[in-house]
């Protein structure tokens, strides 16, 4: 068994301005939804999420606390988070500006937000079905 792992506990990155301004804009507009993508990314860096099954079960667990109405709202918000991240990443790509510290993080947030968005209809459906049985 290999006991050496890439465990990241301390927040010690110094990001470039491109990340800081993108992150700030996303956080101010979509505090909870954007923070969830960041939270899941941190769990990945800490090796607490190591594959797509882990990621999906974490998403299910975190979104499982909301009722149908709240989930519909979340679906809209995650759609906007995903679009905004895609737009930002495309702009950086077009300007050939992808080497700044934080670009990979934004890419990862986009992947996570997209996964959440993809799963939301199913989670919403499950919630509605289980609600109607009660």
């Amino acid at each position, binding site marked *: *068994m*290999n*006991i050496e792992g890439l*465990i990241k*506990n*301390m*927040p*010690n*990155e*110094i*990001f*470039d*301005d491109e990340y*800081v301004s993108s*992150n700030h804009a996303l*956080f101010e507009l979509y*505090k*909870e939804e954007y*923070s*969830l993508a960041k*939270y899941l990314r*941190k*769990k990945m860096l*800490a090796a*607490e999420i190591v594959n797509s099954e882990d990621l999906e079960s974490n998403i299910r667990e*975190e979104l499982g606390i909301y009722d149908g109405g709240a989930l519909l709202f979340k679906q809209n918000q995650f759609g906007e988070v995903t679009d905004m991240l895609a737009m930002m990443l495309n702009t950086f790509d077009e300007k050939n500006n992808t080497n700044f510290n934080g670009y990979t993080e934004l890419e990862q947030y986009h992947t996570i937000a997209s996964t959440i968005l993809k799963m939301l209809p199913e989670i919403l459906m499950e919630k509605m079905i289980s609600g109607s049985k009660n």
Partner: protein
Amino acid sequence: MGIFDFLKGEKKGNKSKYFDVNYEELLSFERKLDSLSDPDDNLYDYPYWYSFIKERATSGWSDKTNKSEDQFVQELVFGHSDEYSKRFLTETLEEKSFFIQPRIICYGAIHDLIIELKNKIQNEYPNDHTLINRLHNEYLHSKASLYGAIKFAIINNIKKEQIKKWYSNFNDDQTLIQGVSPIQEVLEKYLIGDEEDRMANRYEIYELNESEKQEIPFWFRKGTFLYGYFKKGRQVTNKANNKSIKLNRLERSLYWNFKCLSSFVENLPEKMNNHELYIEIYETNELIKNYFEEQNSEAYSILIKEL
């Protein structure tokens, strides 16, 4: 160092891997680490575990300024156990036991070997202060690493009889095992947060029961800069407007952390805005404000908006 000391350690071909001198006692210590290791299981690689002790003893973690050695060790015990507990928040008892067993066994054996080595070096080379100091530091860190692992085991209901099987010299000293949170000293020194909360018993997330844990929003679970949770609510007064409101346990925990984090946000220099650390503190604080605004607007108005 005596004039014939070279005869004791400088054997041809015997070079120390970890020390600048080649005393026989040091070489014997190194051979012992190698011989204890299980070549088929790198969980029991003693030189690997010793490398952590060595590194901790020579890094900034060794700053004992203005602290008794007991306090220094107790703070490290708390820190090691806290790190393990946060990392293993949701794992099963079996997984936790599998994780902590090699640490107790290896740190325990290394701690005993360092005590023995330190005594020998003090007797044989009483003037080699550099080496004696280093070994003393390693002794403190091996003790802290061992009892940090033991604290984690005890928190997770691993029986003391089992711990004794892993480390037969286990000293069941409650003060040592309990450890001390290093942050408390800072909070008291700078009078951060309300006194009643500052001096009250606070809990780490892994010390909460399942229903208490379930209440906590995801963004308030794992931050590096969170200063504990309460198990009971209380009446809180904003001294600036002399208005009071009763907060439940979660709201009290959020408000306490908001006050602590606000102190840091206010005092961090602007040049730190690009640091992940600053971003994490700022965002957690904003999420707390947002929580009160949405979930308890009266508390938001009394305690936060009019701050």
